[in-house]
């Protein structure tokens, strides 16, 4: 049978199935030869039957199911904070600590990291990729210094540059020296040494100047501490320790569509709440997957949606979702019991018993699952 014919036959399934599933259906059916109308009818009936069977039911406590589905496998996770995930050169927090970090919506991950993809012209060429990588790494004079000396007699500071580092970053001592901007002083370059003459300074002052000088910014983007280039497939990808999405996105040659960071808050700030939601989902999925745990995407989406409904990424605990509940009793039953009750008494809060835990506390049936059904009877039935 021709593809068009099959498609025509299944056309009323089109709105009922997700796009991809529908495409897959057509593809699968057209793989078989001599398919009859009867077979198609059978397939259609089976699909309709299965769709009805697998529909979610009103009243289903999807939140609790999601929480259990994420919480239960997390007992099987490893605690090891550091793990070498693909990139041997970078440490990344994984496992349970990472999951807790995500759910807490920490403003800074314990191991911030970026994956920077490049535009095609840069991605294929190792040299060009290296160039961009070099632009990224945040370097201060300290990073290029092997050792320092203070000469009180001449009132000068001598900075011995690390030639290996210099070579790695393709810098010359002159270039470095140019970056040093000091008042009332004279900077002289001698081979791999930088000598800074400070007029009439005491030892204490010299030390202070030295510490300041070592903090001199040479180049790179703030926050990016270490850069590693890796070949993935046929392109070069840059991994960084430390993140600064806003600045990195400005750099030419970077594919801003794919470049990502593991700092959810930063994504929220730079790209908005929708992006943060997606990033959150991706990070949770990756964390679970890396541990070899199977959790339905729906649960993770629900969690991410709950964390982001109010337009900002909120943590799951008492400072976020659980702490901002409308119900006094629900808050009191979670953590900080006394404080919540006292605050409620000041503002005269009324608990309307709309949630689950409140109703358990007062001993009413909960509005969930079978409890969602209410019986409404007409008044006349009560007449005798």
């Amino acid at each position, binding site marked *: 049978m021709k593809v068009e014919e099959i498609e025509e036959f299944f056309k009323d399934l089109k709105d009922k*199935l997700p796009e991809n*599933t529908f495409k897959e259906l057509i593809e699968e059916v057209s793989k078989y*030869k001599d398919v009859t109308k009867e*077979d198609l009818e059978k*397939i259609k009936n*089976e699909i309709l039957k*299965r769709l009805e069977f697998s*529909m*979610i*039911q*009103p009243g*289903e*406590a*999807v*939140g*609790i*199911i*999601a*929480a*259990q*589905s994420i*919480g239960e*496998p997390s*007992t099987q996770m490893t*605690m090891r904070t550091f793990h070498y995930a693909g990139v041997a*050169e970078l440490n990344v927090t994984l496992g*349970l600590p990472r999951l807790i970090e995500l759910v807490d919506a920490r403003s800074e991950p314990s191991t911030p990291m970026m994956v920077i993809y490049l535009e095609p012209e840069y991605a294929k060429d190792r040299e060009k990729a290296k160039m961009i990588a070099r632009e990224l790494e945040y370097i201060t004079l300290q990073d290029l210094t092997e050792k320092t000396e203070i000469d009180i007699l001449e009132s000068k500071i001598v900075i011995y540059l690390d030639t290996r580092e210099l070579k790695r970053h393709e810098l010359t001592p002159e270039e470095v020296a140019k970056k040093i901007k000091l008042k009332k002083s004279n900077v002289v370059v001698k081979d791999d040494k930088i000598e800074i003459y400070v007029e009439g300074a005491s030892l204490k002052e010299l030390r202070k100047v030295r510490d300041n000088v070592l903090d001199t910014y040479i180049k790179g983007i703030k926050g990016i501490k*270490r850069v590693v280039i890796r070949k993935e497939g046929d392109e070069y990808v840059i991994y960084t320790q430390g993140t600064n999405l806003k600045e990195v996105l400005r750099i030419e040659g970077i594919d801003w569509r794919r470049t990502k960071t593991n700092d959810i808050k930063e994504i929220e700030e730079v790209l908005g709440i929708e992006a943060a939601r997606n990033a959150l989902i991706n990070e949770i999925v990756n964390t679970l997957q890396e541990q070899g745990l199977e*959790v*339905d995407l*729906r*649960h993770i*989406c*629900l969690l991410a*949606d*709950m964390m982001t409904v109010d337009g900002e990424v909120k943590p*799951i605990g008492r400072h976020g*979702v659980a702490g901002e*509940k409308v119900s006094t009793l*629900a808050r*009191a*039953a979670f953590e900080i*019991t*006394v404080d*919540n009750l*006292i*605050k409620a*008494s*000041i*503002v*005269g809060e*009324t*608990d*309307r*018993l*709309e949630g689950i835990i409140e109703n*358990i506390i*007062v001993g009413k049936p909960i509005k969930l699952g079978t409890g*969602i059904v209410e019986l409404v009877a007409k008044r006349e039935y*009560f007449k005798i």
Partner: protein
Amino acid sequence: MILIRLEQKQIIGIKFNIMSPEMIRKMAVVKIVTPETYDEDGYPVEGGLMDRRLGTVTPGLRCKTCGGKFGECPGHFGVIELARPVIHIGYAKYIAKILKAICRNCSRVKLTEEERKKFLEKLKRYKGSILIFDVFDEIIKVVKDRKTCPFCGAVQYEIKFENPYNYIEVNPEEKDRKKRERKLTPIDIRERLEKIPNEDLIFLGLDENNRPEWMVLTALPVPPVTVRPSIILETGERSEDDLTHKLVDIVRINKKLMDALEAGAPQPIIEDLWDLLQYHVATYINNEISGMPPAKHRSGRPLKTLAQRLKGKEGRFRGNLSGKRVNYSARTVISPDPNLSLNEVGVPYEVARELTVPVRVTQFNKEFLKKLVKNGPHKYPGANYVERPDGVRINLARVKNLDEIAEKLDIGWIVHRHLMDGDIVLFNRQPSLHRMSMMAHVVRVLPGRTFRLNLTVCPPYNADFDGDEMNLHVPQTEEARAEAKILMLVQTQILSPRFGGPIIGCIHDHISGSYLLTKEGTKLTREELIDLLYIAGILEEVEDKLGDKKEFTGKEVFSLFLPEDISIRFKSKLCKSYKCEKCLEENCPYDAFVVIKNGKLIKGVIDEKAIGAFAGEVIDIIAKKHGFDAARKFLDSYTKFIIAFLMRKGFTTGIDDEDLPKEALERIEEVLKDAIERVKEVIKMYEEGLLEPLPGRSLEETLEMKIMQILSEARDTSGRIANEYLEKQKKENHARIMAITGARGSLLNITQMAACLGQQSVRGERIKRGFINRVLPHFEKGDLGARARGFVASSYKRGLHPVEYFFHAAGGREGLVDTAIRTSQSGYMQRRLINALQDLKVEYDGTVRDARGVIVQFKYGDDGIDPSRSDWGKTLDVKRIVECVLGGKS
């Protein structure tokens, strides 16, 4: 018929407010004036804290206020009139904020009319919600540094608050240090708060039903004795509740203060007493205030006062309101019973006699129930209680003549009969991490003292039989039983909502047995087969399918259990043990590709991937296509069958499963020696400074990484060699079969037993702590070599060198600690997750909303599919459906 209209009262909401002194006084039935509780004769003193008018906690005595007996009288409040006002510690910080916000002269909130208008809008929006505090904090920021009052123009002083309840006013104009600061007494504070006009309350976030001065206590409510019952110790001594102790302190000091005031005692003495009263009232409310010593019991234990009763895991909220203790429950050790259905639970007679089900007597069951009542509580199918229509309960254990009661039994009575076969009960194992931790089972009363359960339900409960205990609960109403049966019965939970596959399935022996049954070459004679099918209980059902063949292959036998319209193709678990370049699918040389066509197993072996818990494709398709009943039947009969089969065949593992030929051992030794040599070389390079550091790593880190890499490679190679020889063996190697079919253990386990344990690690690094510059004194200082840092070259079979044993123990200990920490951490995370998501539910319109009614998702999961009924997360596995219809054809 007469319909009676039932009046029902329902709580629709709970409002929280501050209690006024008038209210406290009105509520009280007694004024507590004396610190004595009992007189010499042991009678409660009138006007004391155990006054009989406060209620009764002793059985036999009647309450002097309401006349109720113990259990009827809810208790009544008393009151302590405080000689001087004191701060309510819970509101101390808030009072400080108010004092900062109001004028010290006219007590109005120091906002100008314009500012008032501006804030009013916001305040009205958040009225009655704790979010109003955010606005209040904004107001404070505006107002606290105002030098003059915008209303009366009075000069404002700075208010300093010192924990826990000291308020100090600083006059900036006063030069003299001592005079500059003045401590505000609760009387001063109360005066100021009293003057705050009602229309200003909203700017403080206060509800209009509250008055700020109520936060400074003048009368203290005394909770009824039912709240603080005294207990009589074995010695006959009376021991009072912590609250009573604290109240006694308060009354005593209060009386002293009152006397002092009356006698006109000097100011410092009065102030000291006042301070003491404040301390006692504060600790009465909360005994864990920072910066204040907690009030202690004579024994030195800190007292548990009001706040402590509510707080924390064992507090009122989490311990008694969110979760409660229940009746009709039992707990004992569990043990396996493959002859039970997976829906069933074996209950000991001892338990069945104790747990009861209430049954209403009708004309149909009257005779039956009579018999049970006659049997009484001690003879098994009996009853423990009967309930007359007027609600009176008769305990049959106390009845002398059971027959007499049985004869009285009539329609409308309720008999609490013993648990019997066929009853529905809930069965649970902690930790209850997901909903499958509590499922409904059908009772089978059995001899023995343990709960018995089918082996296939072990994975959802995460149970084993090394001493695990489980709980059992008997639902007491028809509704509860109906819900349990329809929604919670084990078979309805076969598919896990976590990943959309079966969580109930075959384990251990079922899987290795299935492999031995379905691998090429297994044949059963007709006699053997019929015998096994009879044990499985499906002989009658499948007899027609047998035809007149004399011999059956394992694959044919497996097919007998499958419904006819199932067609499916998948890679078996076995496939993972072989690394083929290209999958030949049905032509797989290892028989690792499963093809089932029209309910016939054509190719492939049945192992974990087909029938295992968490993975079983076959169970999955039966449950989804033919329903849970069919899946249950399959599991029940198939597991019985396969265990009988395996029993006949014999299956064991022993140390000879790890026997390797000499040649293999030599090769392994060679590999390990070589690895250790290579590590030495790397170390030498490092020492000579020839090692190139990896980008972004220090020289030491690079060295460690290199060594770890070499050693793990060595372990892998030695494992591969071992496996190679085990595979070549002619004899069936049961340890290997278990590993490759996914029944138990892994190839790594076998490697460790037969070849080499490998590198032991602590914190992901080679073991390095211990003596100075070396882990153990057996090594040279600074030795970085493989063996010195925890490489174990021996196998379990060969035995570990003492030094190796030590390293292994170090690594093992880390694992134990890790698990202990992890459980608490993930438990807390799950509690938070549940708390955050518990109110989410799917509405009738398909949206997901929280308790507020805010839409979180417009369509659940974007496709409205129940994850437990999805195909491993997919909306629909169309490939499989098409395969089932068309796959059988060609």
